[in-house]
């Protein structure tokens, strides 16, 4: 069996910015390709951009995203009583749709030779 190269991306919220820098070094400067990419949490956001070799958007994402783009507080009592969480992750959902919902980007990911696995909690 031929050797395969895998990249495992950890979670850690904003620490994904560091991962993005490392990934840029590995893929652009060292020209490494990966057969398999696995990501969890923030790593799950990075994984599809690695699989589709979209390193510019990976860097762009982590350089420009702010906390309000990921989640917003639910300070009101009604939300506290009727919601399942104190924070609303709708902004992250919209951001994911913006970055990965595009048909061309999705098709590029599907056609990628890099296998991808992600683990996330239910949003």
């Amino acid at each position, binding site marked *: 069996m031929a050797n395969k190269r895998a990249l495992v991306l950890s979670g850690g919220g904003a620490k994904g910015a560091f991962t993005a*820098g490392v990934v840029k070094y590995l893929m*652009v400067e060292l020209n490494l390709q990966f057969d398999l990419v696995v990501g969890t949490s923030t790593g799950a956001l990075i994984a599809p951009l690695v699989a589709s070799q979209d390193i510019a958007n990976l860097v762009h994402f982590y350089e420009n*995203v702010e906390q309000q783009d990921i989640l917003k507080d639910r300070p009101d009592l009604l939300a506290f009583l009727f919601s399942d969480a104190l924070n609303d992750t709708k902004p992250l959902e919209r951001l994911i749709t913006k970055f990965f919902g595009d048909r061309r980007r999705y098709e590029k990911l599907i056609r990628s030779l890099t296998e991808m696995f992600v683990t996330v909690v239910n949003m």
Partner: protein
Amino acid sequence: MHLRTSNIAILRTGIVIMIACILAACETTPDVGPEPLGGFNEKVTTLVTTTVRGRLRENLPKQKLLEAQLPSLEKTLTMNQLMDELKGIDPLKDLAYLIETDIMFELQKPEHHRERTSFNNPEIQRELVSAILAVMKRALDQLKGGKGGK
């Protein structure tokens, strides 16, 4: 009579809860966050910005050297001229090679076929040179302003 009053109170509470639920459901999130990059120049300049910052971070002499060389770099019209000029400055030679790597990384992608075939077009070259110089300046400003991490 007492039963009727309590029924009305329950009804009122129900209506208030229903209105609150409808308002919560209708709540919209403003469209925030970065837009994904699409174009070749946008993608290349994003990569180059991080490369310049990464190479010159905590290296004030190199930052000053690049800043001092910018007027002469601005006279170049093609990427070859720009890179030759940069490679001619010994401390900035590695930066020139990395910028070339960034450009090649994007250029070899299938979606940039059009840019690849017309890469030598003078207009495209001029646009790219001017975009690269603009992000060099931006990266230097960001380093001065403390952006770019330690």
